[in-house]
């Protein structure tokens, strides 16, 4: 086994204290990575329990109705608040953003460390609520159910409130870092597209997250003191909560997907050795999506009793989001044209993303159109749709990015063979699990059901079998990634021959990122300007 002898951020400084008090964005990124992977594992275990229960094989139940309601609530809350929202920005973004800008660190290293500990603190509150009777409201905490159920809603929402601060701090840090710490000569149009997307994301994080905080505080006050803002018996409006909640949570969907789009915009040029097609269109479509994301929340409420006029406006604005998203997909596709395409594992995940996110986006049309949404709302069609967007989109991009930057983070290579097997299993398992749910939903199967009519059993069974394939893919991934840390081949500094600035230093990078100040000789995707002689993939 080769050892990493030269000095790098992993081995210098030494000692556990140097890690927990570190101000190095790379170490904070790594700690975030470990924390969110643990959250993903926990959320994944709950997902498997849900699917096992819904198998209903021979009419058998795995758990009672109350437990089931708690399990799907925890699955949703953990995956959204503890995993997907922080996954790309806080873990991968933290690690690479300053390096992509040629900077030594983020603008506020102490704030960065604080945001990590706030995340851990919030996560502990959320996990604590499980041990005190869990929560059975669904991850959206809709009133008046959430103000009347006797489960531990307060500690869960308090956890989410705290997590919100972590998200805001990361956002502020990234905005200032992008404005202030770019390498001299790196104009806005020379920034990597991942940076653009993290920037657009950070704007949403800073502007939208406080609304969630306020909403959750109102919910806690309502529950504790009965202030009557949502309680109809006291003149409150139970639907008002939904407006507040989605005013944050719809933009939050873009907090989840924009960074994913950024990663895809990095990976496709590298593994096609092609300059990205339509750089400015991609950059501006990120900002356009961030802007429009604030104006579409009402599309979650087409059947809530809101006025038809409001429904019309929200439906129209929702369709506007389709356009920049479509533009991005065509741009990525066009980047493949006349490329030199390597099917290395990050590229497999990028192509998975293209396919799954396209389905996720297109099925959004069924839900954005008012008349069809009436039939599909709150059914498994919606469940399938957002899993295609969030898991097929964000998680695939996260995995692509994780495999792409893995050698940069650890200085080691994983097994390409097992990684490909795992990627194929994840892709197949995902589609079997969730495509089935489009059919289930269109046929009328409502979501959040512990029991269901027999006519839906076969499709539920297919979905559960798919989840086993998916889980197998993830287990293999965990094994080869952990194996690579111990016995992995020593990674070259730039295994993918990428032009990204983060690959100009050593892998793993030195503590100060760059031993000599990097010079900007070309744009991030100028593969046409350099002579290549590689044979990767």
């Amino acid at each position: 086994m080769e050892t990493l002898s030269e000095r790098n951020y992993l081995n210098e400084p030494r000692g556990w204290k140097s890690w927990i008090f570190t101000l190095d964005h790379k170490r904070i990124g790594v700690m975030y990575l470990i924390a969110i992977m643990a959250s993903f594992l926990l959320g994944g275990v709950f997902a498997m329990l849900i699917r096992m229960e819904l198998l209903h094989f021979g009419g058998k139940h795995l758990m009672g109705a109350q437990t089931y309601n708690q399990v799907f609530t925890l699955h949703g809350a953990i995956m959204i608040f503890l995993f997907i929202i922080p996954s790309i920005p806080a873990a991968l973004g933290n690690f690479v953003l300053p390096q992509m800008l040629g900077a030594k660190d983020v603008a506020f290293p102490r704030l960065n460390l604080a945001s990590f500990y706030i995340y851990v603190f919030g996560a502990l509150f959320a996990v604590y609520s499980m041990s005190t009777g869990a929560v059975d409201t669904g991850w959206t905490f809709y009133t008046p159910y959430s103000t009347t159920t006797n489960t531990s809603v307060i500690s869960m929402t308090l956890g989410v409130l705290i997590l919100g601060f972590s998200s805001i701090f990361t956002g502020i840090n990234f905005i200032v870092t992008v404005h202030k710490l770019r390498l001299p000569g790196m104009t806005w149009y020379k920034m990597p597209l991942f940076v653009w997307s993290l920037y657009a994301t950070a704007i949403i994080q800073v502007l939208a997250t406080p609304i969630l905080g306020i909403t959750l505080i109102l919910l806690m006050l309502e529950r504790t003191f009965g202030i009557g803002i949502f309680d109809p018996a006291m003149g409150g409006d139970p639907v008002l909560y939904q407006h507040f909640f989605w005013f944050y949570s719809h933009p939050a969907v873009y907090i989840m997907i924009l960074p994913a789009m950024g990663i895809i915009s990095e990976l496709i040029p590298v593994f096609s050795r092609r300059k990205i097609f339509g750089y400015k269109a991609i950059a501006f479509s990120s900002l356009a999506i961030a802007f429009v994301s604030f104006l579409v929340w009402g599309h979650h409420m087409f059947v809530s009793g809101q006025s038809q006029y409001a429904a019309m406006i929200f439906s129209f604005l929702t369709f506007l989001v389709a356009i920049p998203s479509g533009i991005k997909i065509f741009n990525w596709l066009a980047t493949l044209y006349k490329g030199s395409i390597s099917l290395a594992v990050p590229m497999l995940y990028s192509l998975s993303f293209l396919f799954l996110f396209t389905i996720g986006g297109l099925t959004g049309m069924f839900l954005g159109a008012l008349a069809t949404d009436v039939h599909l709302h709150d059914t498994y069609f919606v469940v399938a749709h957002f899993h295609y967007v969030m898991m097929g989109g964000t998680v695939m991009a996260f995995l692509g990015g994780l495999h792409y930057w893995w050698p940069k983070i650890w200085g080691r290579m994983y097994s390409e063979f097992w990684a490909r097997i795992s990627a194929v299993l994840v892709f197949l398992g995902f589609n079997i699990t969730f495509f089935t749910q489009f059919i289930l939903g269109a046929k009328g199967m409502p979501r959040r059901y512990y029991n269901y009519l027999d006519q839906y059993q076969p499709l539920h069974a297919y979905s559960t079998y798919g989840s086993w394939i998916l889980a197998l893919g993830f287990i293999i991934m965990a094994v080869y990634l952990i194996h690579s840390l111990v016995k992995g081949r020593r990674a070259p500094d730039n295994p993918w021959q990428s032009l990204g600035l983060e690959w100009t230093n050593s892998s793993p990078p030195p503590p100060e990122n760059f031993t000599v100040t990097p010079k900007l000789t070309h744009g991030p995707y100028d593969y046409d300007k350099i002579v290549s002689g590689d044979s990767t993939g």
Partner: protein
Amino acid sequence: MILDTTGSLFLPPGHSTFSGEVDSLFNFILYASAVFLAIVVFGIIFFVLRYRRRPKEGVVTGPTHSTALEIIWSVIPTILVIIVFFWGFRLYLKMSIPPKDALEIKVTGQKWFWTFDYPNGANTLNELVVPVGKPVKLLMSSRDVIHGFYIPDFRIKMDVVPNRYTITWFEAVQTGVFNIFCTQYCGKGHSEMIAKVKVLGEREYNDWLISGTKAGEGMSLEDFGAKLYVSRACVTCHSVDGTANVGPSLKMIFGHQVKLADGSSVSADENYIRESILNPQARIVAGYQSVMPTFQGILNDRELDALIAYIKSLK
């Protein structure tokens, strides 16, 4: 079976006046999506095969920008989504505004059953009875949390909210029995909140309306009670086979001592059962939450007698 023999791959058969129109829009989006997805999939496969990386490859150049192309792929989707938007909106308006002459039925949702009140004073639980070929307007409200009223076969859905009325309507095009689901998560019994809509011919409907208030005639009390146990939604929370559900099972409780939440116990006689139906919070059985709604004003004396007779029979 993935392929249902009665419907399309995706949708169940439709049985209301606008289900066909909703399905047309659904299918239009489906076909448009299929074309779009095919372009992406074909593009990926073709490019990956055609431009696979070969060893010792030189500089790769290709177009990095094409105004014409970018306009085309912005404008075509824009036109498409505008068509879908207007189509969806027009149909939604039609689905939202009931005709003036519609038959009005009051729907009440509560944990975890539906009550339907008809213009002549009749009421049913978990079974909505409507005439075929006549528009039916549903005026809906909830007694506790938000519920969702959904009839997949009619393609209608509307949330049912406490302290306000929401409206939906439909016109069934054929007789039959169809499912009603609750689609807004409402707690432990959410998935048990399944009701039926029974579409009758106009004559049968009128006959039913007249006899509806005199249900149970010519049946023994015990049989009538068994029927009420299902139709009045007791079945949602109380099993008759001994399994504990949201509420205690009714099997073999009559005449036995029941342990109460306050530590005392009571003999489950006629008076206790009657009290538990009319004033459920009075004496809660140990180990259960106090969530049962009152049936005061919903069940008449004969119905209460019948239910007690039925519970007595559960040995």
